């Protein structure tokens, strides 16, 4: 890549042209719901195109520079899906309608069922579209972020010489992965949800292992695939159980009447839901199936942003959210509250554990990975609380908790995608700066320098203004600084978790305390990451050469910064939380009317009521959380890792106040603590990975050794013996074919006699 690449905005013309796609569809007389299947179909069609053309024409100039090795094609396709999604949302908002089941787009398999009374009924496995507020939220998150991450990836991937001539593979897999996510969200049955779920699993394997020649990347890909596979097996078992109950996996059947005419009781559903939840645990990297996520950082950074923020990890949340109607079914009251409690517990434990490990992580992407686990765990806790409240009959609070959880999903996805991309930007520039500083051909030194290690950074705020601002806003959203992004949703989740306790779910006390503590810990580790990277004096000479370059990387960051900074506030004021759970509710309209009459009071009212219920105990909890996360955590981090920039360096105004703050709070040396036993344990991820390996080496490996022995000696032995016998018989038999016509005649004559004899003898 050249030092100063020329602007390449002209390449975006085809992409922008694609935005007109919905308008054309509209002019042709289609409505958005008829076009929804295109959200899945377009990426599916683009995937082979990029792959085949890329394989054929890689290295050619037009492919490399005009189409960015397929990136432009992928981006154009994702532009179509994004514009279709927005069209769908506009239609949804205008009509306030529950689209629900839209019927089959196509029939896949038709088969007969034999019922117990020996009659046949025809079943069809068909693919259809199911659109409601939940799927629209997740769909928008996925489509929007896929588009931006693809944009980012064009800048990130095509400028790296290691990726030369194989980026078409990346973009093809990227598009297929997006297709899997869109399909999963839009599917109208658990079967298709599962199929797309597995497509994502496959693509995550391929993408994490994109640098397959690196053993660590290959191992990480394998680990991610196998760990999620463990969950998927349970998910499949859960689906079987569900099918056994309902004789269908269609949402329309299951959610239409969860009791199936009163024949199904809540107790029947406990195990299916637990099984399916284990699948979600695997996919969303929750304890105890979380071990794959940190390792998955081996993939290229856009992949981390894609998998760990925008799409795949949200799949598990989406599936749990999908099952919410079952929990809120009136006749199941109380039967499923234990399951809901389990969800909350898993969430609480993971949130705390991941935050703890993030304290000591030095790899910038690993911090984000653990933060992802922790934040997803928040959402699980929120969903668990929502399910519990719904199942115990507190519908009003349940809807609020559910909305808060989904809102957090939205906020977290936006912020985390941006954080990952910012970290990608940092890594990218550190890498280039290192090449620049030490010469491109200096391979030997290359291995010692880790561009992802925050201990090599510091003081980058002045070098990378856009990135540092983006990262600041993202971190603030994750931490939950008031008025920004994740603030409302996080307070909602914490509040509702405690609300469950107040409503009689004593079991929730432990996870509720954990998430409250985690709020403060989040404040610490996110601030620590920012300060280590951007504040203080440079910790290596490489930093001198860092600068931001390509617009491909900056544009998505700016876009997402704006989204993160304002969307939380706007959506909270727009009662997104309520709208999610009950789109027909009219609550959203209050704010706008009040706002024009007396704007200040309106905003204050919303601030108070958007996230906090009118209960004094909960208010205390909420303010504690705010204090911990916004005040205490960042303060400690600033003391430990903050500091002024070097002389003469100047950060942009948006971030300079933070630098000043960090430099003025003093300094604490934590060297001793970092040497302690707890830190070592945390560095080793609490030994969970090691425990798994130990268990596997003591159980599975001997078992497989025994199986291998049986297979090799017993099974293969028998087969080999059969084979040798057959070959021997073959040789013997073919010797009868002598090649002499007289012998053949003799055989035929004998045969004739035998035939006559048999026929004669039988009669």
């Amino acid at each position, binding site marked *: 890549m050249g030092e100063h690449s020329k602007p390449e905005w002209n390449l975006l013309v085809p992409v922008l042209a694609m935005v007109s796609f919905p308008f054309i569809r509209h002019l042709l007389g289609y409505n958005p719901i008829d076009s929804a299947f295109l959200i899945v179909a377009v990426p599916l069609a683009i995937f082979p195109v990029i792959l085949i053309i890329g394989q054929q024409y890689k290295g050619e100039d037009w492919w490399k520079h005009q189409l960015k090795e397929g990136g432009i094609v992928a981006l154009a396709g994702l532009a179509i899906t994004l514009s279709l999604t927005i069209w769908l949302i506009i239609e949804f908002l205008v009509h306030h309608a529950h689209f629900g089941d839209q019927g089959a787009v196509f029939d896949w398999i038709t088969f007969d069922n034999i019922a117990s009374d020996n009659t046949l009924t025809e079943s069809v496995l068909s693919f259809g579209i199911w659109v409601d507020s939940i799927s629209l939220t997740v769909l928008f998150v996925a489509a929007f972020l896929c588009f931006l991450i693809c944009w980012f990836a064009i800048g990130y991937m095509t400028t790296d010489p290691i990726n030369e001539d194989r980026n078409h593979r990346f973009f093809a897999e990227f598009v297929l992965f997006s297709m899997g996510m869109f399909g999963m969200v839009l599917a109208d049955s658990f079967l298709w949800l599962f199929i797309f779920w597995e497509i994502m699993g496959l693509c995550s394997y391929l993408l994490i292992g994109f640098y397959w020649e690196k053993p660590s990347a290959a191992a990480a890909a394998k680990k991610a695939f196998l760990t999620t596979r463990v969950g998927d097996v349970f998910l499949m078992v859960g689906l079987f159980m569900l099918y056994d109950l309902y004789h269908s996996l269609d949402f329309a059947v299951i959610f239409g009447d969860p009791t199936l005419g009163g024949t199904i009781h809540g107790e029947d559903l406990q195990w299916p839901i637990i099984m399916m939840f284990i699948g979600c645990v695997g996919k969303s990297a929750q304890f105890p199936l979380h071990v794959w996520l940190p390792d998955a950082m081996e993939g290229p950074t856009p992949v981390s942003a894609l998998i760990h923020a925008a799409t795949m990890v949200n799949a598990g949340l989406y599936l749990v959210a999908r099952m919410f109607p079952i929990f809120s079914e009136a006749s199941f009251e109380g039967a499923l509250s234990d399951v809901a409690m389990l969800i909350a517990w898993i969430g609480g434990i993971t949130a705390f554990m991941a935050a703890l490990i993030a304290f000591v992580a030095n790899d910038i992407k690993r911090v984000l990975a653990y933060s992802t686990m922790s934040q997803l765990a928040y959402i699980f806790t929120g969903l668990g609380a929502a399910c519990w409240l719904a199942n115990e009959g507190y519908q009003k609070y349940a809807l609020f908790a559910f909305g808060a959880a989904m809102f957090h999903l939205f906020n977290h996805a936006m912020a985390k995608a941006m954080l990952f991309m910012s970290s990608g930007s940092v890594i990218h520039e550190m890498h280039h700066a290192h090449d620049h500083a030490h010469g491109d051909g200096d391979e030997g030194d290359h291995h010692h320098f880790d561009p992802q290690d925050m201990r090599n950074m510091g003081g980058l705020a002045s070098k990378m203004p856009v990135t540092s601002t983006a990262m600041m806003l993202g971190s603030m959203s994750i931490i939950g600084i008031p008025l920004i992004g994740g603030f409302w949703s996080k307070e909602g989740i914490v509040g509702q978790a405690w609300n469950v306790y107040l409503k009689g779910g004593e079991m929730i006390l432990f996870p509720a305390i954990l998430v409250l503590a985690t709020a403060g810990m989040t404040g610490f580790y996110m601030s620590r990451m920012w300060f280590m990277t951007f504040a203080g004096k440079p910790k290596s000479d490489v930093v001198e050469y860092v600068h931001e370059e390509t617009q491909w990387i900056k544009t998505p960051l700016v876009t997402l910064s704006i989204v993160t900074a304002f969307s939380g506030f706007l959506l909270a004021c727009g009662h997104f939380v309520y709208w999610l759970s009950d789109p027909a509710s009219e609550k959203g309209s209050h704010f706008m009317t009040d706002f024009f009459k007396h704007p200040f009071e309106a905003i204050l009212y919303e601030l108070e009521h958007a996230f906090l219920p009118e209960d004094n105990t909960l208010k205390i909890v909420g303010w504690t959380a705010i204090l911990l996360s916004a005040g205490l955590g960042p303060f400690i981090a600033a003391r430990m890792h903050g500091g002024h920039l070097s002389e003469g360096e100047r950060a942009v105004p948006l971030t300079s106040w933070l630098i000043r703050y960090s430099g003025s709070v003093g300094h604490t040396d934590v060297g001793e603590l970092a040497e302690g036993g707890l830190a070592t344990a945390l560095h080793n991820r609490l030994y969970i990975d090691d425990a798994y390996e130990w268990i596997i080496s003591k159980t599975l490996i001997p078992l497989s050794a025994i199986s291998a022995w049986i297979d090799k000696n017993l099974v293969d032995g028998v087969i080999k013996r059969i*084979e040798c016998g*057959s*070959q021997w*018989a*073959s*040789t013997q*038999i*073919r010797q*009868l*074919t002598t*090649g002499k*016509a007289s*012998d*053949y*005649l003799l*055989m*035929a004559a*004998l*045969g*004739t006699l035998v*035939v*006559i004899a*048999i*026929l*004669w003898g*039988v*009669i």
Partner: protein
Amino acid sequence: MNLGTLFSGPDMASILMPEWILILGITAMIIVPNLGNATFRLPIPNTSIRIPYLLGGKRFSFTGDPRLPSAIAAFTLFASFITALLSQMIDSGVGVAEACISMTGAVNECAISDNYILRVDPFSRMMEMIFTAALLIAVIANMDRLPATSHKRLQLEVQEDPVAENRRLAKLLNNRRQVDFSLLVLMVALGMSTVALSTNLFSLFVGLELASMASYVLVSFHKETKIGPEAGVKYFIVGSVAGAVGLYGISMLYIWNGDLSIYGTGGLAEKWASEGPNGMAIIGLAMMLVAFGFKVSAVPFHFAAPDAYAGASGPVAGVLSTASKAMGFVALMRVLFGVTLGDGGNEWTILIGAVAAITMTWGNIAALGSKNPKRMLAYSSIAHAGYILAGIAAIGALGPGAGSELIATAIIFHLAVLVTFKIGAFLVVSLLECEGRGHEISHFHGLARRDPMIAIPMMIFMLALAGVPPLSGFLSKLMMVSGIISSTVGDVSGATLSDAFGSLSWVFWLAILIFINSAISIFYYLRICVVMFFEETDRSPRMSRAPMIRIAIMLCTMGAVVLGFGVLADVLAIAASDAAAALFS
């Protein structure tokens, strides 16, 4: 013009249209290539008025074109195929789906009491289509195996170099033989069609021998090779002996009954049902089974078959293993089902069952060790004959009924789809023959790298032969096995397991044997695939161009795929079940 009118009248011209076209083609083949500017002088003194009579002289450039005979043959076979197809496709209200021709040449709507000699029904039409399709593919492919060179190019190629001169002579020889080959192919087609139509043992035998005699010559057609004529002669010797035995058997049946018609008043079936066979009839039947057993290459009459297949050129071997074999099965089914099964006479069931078991096992085991792909395919075709014989034995054990019709459907379906993948496999071998190879399994090494457009079809053929779903070979085998099993275990529901197994018909075990044999066969089919894809070769990647063989291979591939899980699978299955119903009516 409404095509339906072609078949509308119950008269000889319309209902035998496919055969008339073949006869027309044979006539044209004899006449057209000989057309020239020959004249003769009127025997009037002092005049030189010459009247052209066209036969002979210097031939016109069109009629003298060596590529013409193949074109005529292909066109004739295609037309015959299409007319047979149309006569079945057109609504029975318009065309004649069924008609019979009696000994005196009268054409009637079929009445079962009538004493007729040829019968047109879905079964015979189906068989005609199988025969003509197989021969059509063979003719197309043979255009590259026996390439015709235009005279202009031959004249340009005169060279002093003795090697080039030899090559030129070979081309000249090929040109000379074009008419012979095409004529023989059309003869085969006519003979086979006659067999398909015959309901009289005499006409059946005439048709059988017409086709057989022509095919013996076709086997040894490449007389400049060493193995070709040898194989042809061996095939001829054994075949003629088998034919003679069969004819002897027919004459015994004639002595017994005094009439060789199968159906109708005074026919064999009536006598068999009413009086039961005596010793002479049994011996006659046994001898006929020998003759037909040779045609389908059942053990122990199969010995000449591997030699013949290995000696013949690929397309001809393909015809032998599909059309010729199907002809044998038509004859076998006509005699066995027509004559003996009418009154539940199934004396031959045990015999056919035993032969089936031995044949399929023998074929598969012998194929396991074969190093020559063509011999391997020959043995595999013997094994397939075993599967079909097992189906026939099952029909014998079950007697007429829905189950039998299902199995007969499977047999006919199998014979039809064999045309695609069996010939296809032989054609791939034939493509290798074009470069002087193809007689060693090592010649397949690295084929996928040399030419994936050939290796992938070959893999499809092999998988279809092995019966891997969802290819057509699987469907036919599935229908056969499920037909046998569902017919034999239909009445054991509710019994305990041991009772159920105890009361099973022995035919059930034939189905199990088909399973086991299929498993064995996968080994040698997949071995071809393995060496194609995973072995290295030092041959240059350029294969022979051979465009016509490639076209034929593509046709076969499409057939194997489309008839397996495409829309046409249903169509073919329905046609086969119509044919099976007609066979038992």
